[in-house]
């Protein structure tokens, strides 16, 4: 329990702030499709060229090799500056990249990490399946070894940014004899391979970020396997650990910006019962305060996760606590706009801008990366040591 930031760190913070203020794109980020990919990649490239990409990644792979504190400072300043969400870069920067750093071979790191930082390639995830949902151990997409290739057949679903991705972290069954979670492998799939077909799925927000992908005898070189063949479960757990821990720090910072905006609007808008300012209505003020406390807790819990990560290589199950706190809060914050502004907040591109979009899009946090129910199971069993049920 102490201040971590040294005077040197604070200098770093000031440089970051200065650069961000001058360089954050002011144009609106497109809602989906190739335009959005281009926007995200261009912005990543600009960060890379100015030396702000991969702050805590190893220097051998074009990272900056700085301590996690600097990475965290960057995130804070990034959010403060109102920089756009990392979007299509998310899996590469927060998921696949960190996984390759701890579990990948030298060749994997050389080949893939710099391309992520430079904004050259978009990654997507490939864990969930139509039949399996949150039940990773029951995956059926199969990889049959033929010579020096895996031949993959099956289907993955809910692949965010899948329609615009180049590469995929694919979890497949390479052995059907071994127990459920012991026959899986984590493999890098080039989505431009023959036999890959992609069906975009429209989300409830009306935009298309994810898709279903079919694999029909897709040939993947055996050297694309990360970790051991049939050893994919532990690699996947590491991946999910990054997602649960600090992987979503950017989204959390963003939520806190939305929260601040909500309080600001409550000071500017007239109140629901004729008050001059909405915040003068006690009911509104009380709800805002409750939300603000929960957003504060989310940030504090993330700080704790960062502190834990500095002491361990692969994050543990504690990250699920952060995810659980985040999962429902994001909807509550965005949903409050309707209480504050009523029908006006309904309008897309109206005075409330992206609020209705963000509200609807926020439902993904209750579902993605394992539903909240699965997270509660994981906390109960892995963190608290409660017994598994017979079912």
């Amino acid at each position, binding site marked *: 329990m102490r201040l971590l930031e040294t005077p040197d760190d604070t200098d770093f913070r000031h440089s970051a702030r200065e650069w961000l203020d001058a360089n954050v794109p002011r144009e609106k980020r497109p809602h989906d499709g190739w335009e959005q990919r281009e926007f995200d990649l261009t912005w990543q490239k600009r960060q890379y060229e100015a030396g702000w990409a991969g702050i805590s990644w190893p220097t051998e792979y074009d990272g900056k090799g700085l301590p996690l504190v600097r990475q965290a400072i960057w995130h804070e300043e990034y959010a403060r500056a109102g920089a756009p969400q990392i979007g299509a870069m998310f899996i590469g920067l927060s998921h696949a990249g960190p996984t390759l750093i701890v579990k990948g071979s030298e060749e994997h790191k050389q080949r893939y990490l710099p391309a992520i930082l430079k904004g050259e390639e978009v990654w997507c995830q490939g864990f*969930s399946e139509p039949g*399996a*949902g*949150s*039940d990773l151990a*029951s995956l059926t997409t199969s990889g049959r070894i033929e010579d020096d290739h895996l031949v993959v057949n099956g289907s993955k*679903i*809910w692949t965010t940014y899948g329609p615009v991705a180049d590469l995929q972290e694919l979890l497949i069954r390479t052995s059907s004899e071994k127990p459920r979670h012991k026959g899986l492998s984590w493999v890098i799939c080039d989505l431009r391979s023959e036999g890959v077909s992609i069906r975009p*799925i*429209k*989300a*409830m927000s*009306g935009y298309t970020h994810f898709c279903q992908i079919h694999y029909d005898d897709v040939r993947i070189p055996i050297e694309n396997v990360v970790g051991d063949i049939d050893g994919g479960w532990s690699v996947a757990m590491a991946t999910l650990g990054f997602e649960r821990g600090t992987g979503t720090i950017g989204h959390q910072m963003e939520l806190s910006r939305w929260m601040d905006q909500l309080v600001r609007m409550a000071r500017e*808008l*007239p*109140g*629901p*019962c*004729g*008050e001059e300012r*909405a915040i003068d*209505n006690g*009911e*509104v003020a009380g709800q805002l305060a409750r939300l603000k406390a929960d957003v504060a807790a989310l940030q504090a819990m993330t700080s704790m996760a960062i502190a834990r990560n500095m002491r361990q290589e692969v994050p543990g199950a504690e990250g699920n606590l952060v995810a659980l706190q985040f999962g429902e809060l994001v*909807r509550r914050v965005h949903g409050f706009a*309707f*209480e*504050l*502004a*009523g*029908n*006006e907040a*309904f*309008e*897309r*591109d*109206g005075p409330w801008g992206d609020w*209705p979009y963000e*509200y*609807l899009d926020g*439902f*993904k946090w*209750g*579902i*993605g990366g394992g*539903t*909240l*129910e699965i997270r*509660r199971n994981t906390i109960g069993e892995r963190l608290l040591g409660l017994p598994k049920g017979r*079912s």
Partner: protein
Amino acid sequence: MILDLMLSDEQELVQDSTGGFLADRLPLERLREEANWQADAEILVWDELTELGLFGLGVEESRGGIGMSLAEEVIVAQALGEQLVSPLVLATMVAAHLGDAGEYAAGRRASFATPVRRGKYGERIEVHLLDSKASEDIVLLLPDRAMLFDRSALADLTPVATMDETVGFERATLDHAAARLSVEGSRLFEQAELLISSCLAGIAQQACNMAVAYAGMREQFGQPIGAFQAVKHSCAEMARRAEAALCQTRLATAQSLADTPDSSAIACARLLAGDGAIENAKANIQVHGGMGFTFEANAHLLLKRAHLLVSLNGNRAQLLQRIIGEEE
């Protein structure tokens, strides 16, 4: 006062006939097709809706209505909610109490206007219009006054895109002075509150039904997900919220019928039904997992419509004040 909240045989007949018709001709699933949005599907079967006697159902026969009561209209409203029927139908039902019931029974249509912003209203109000493109009249309900306008009285008409894309939205300005009819008092406002509550109770019930059906069918970890307590208990809470919304709406309706309307009880119904609809719609999305998050499933439709109806004609902070009888 002892009320029977179950339906009488006659009331069950209304429920079965309207519910059956809507499930058959305007089922929720129609909204998967964009061609059926913005009341287009409703307009195609409008003649049949008038034949069912929906418009003027609770209006005295002497005033050109069918001569049933608010109770039967509340039953119809629930069925409208369950199938997410356009607010155009509900608005026309309300208009039949305000204007000439005979005309609406003959096919005239009315749409809701609802204030865009919260707070106190002046003589000129900026409003949203809901599914108004094929209606002749506009109904505006304020807590102390109900007004009917010709469509031509609308100024500054502009279409807007909103969160619930299945309902057509426009912005416009309305001037009190331009009203064709204006009735003081809260009676019509409160009756409409009960109808909207009942619509919302219908959405709450539909969300519960949809979740239960999916949970009984979808398998994960080797059994239907409805066998897991997390899902089962979520469904049980959905059933409780739907029941609370239904019972309170019926109770407040029965009080009104007994000529002892209770403004606080009506506000309670509106709050419980609104919260029930939104919470159940969210829980239904959650039960559906990834599928619930898509535009391809029906779950999101319930959520968006629930928010729309909750925002109609007022806001939560006002509701809370009405419940404890501390209006400013």
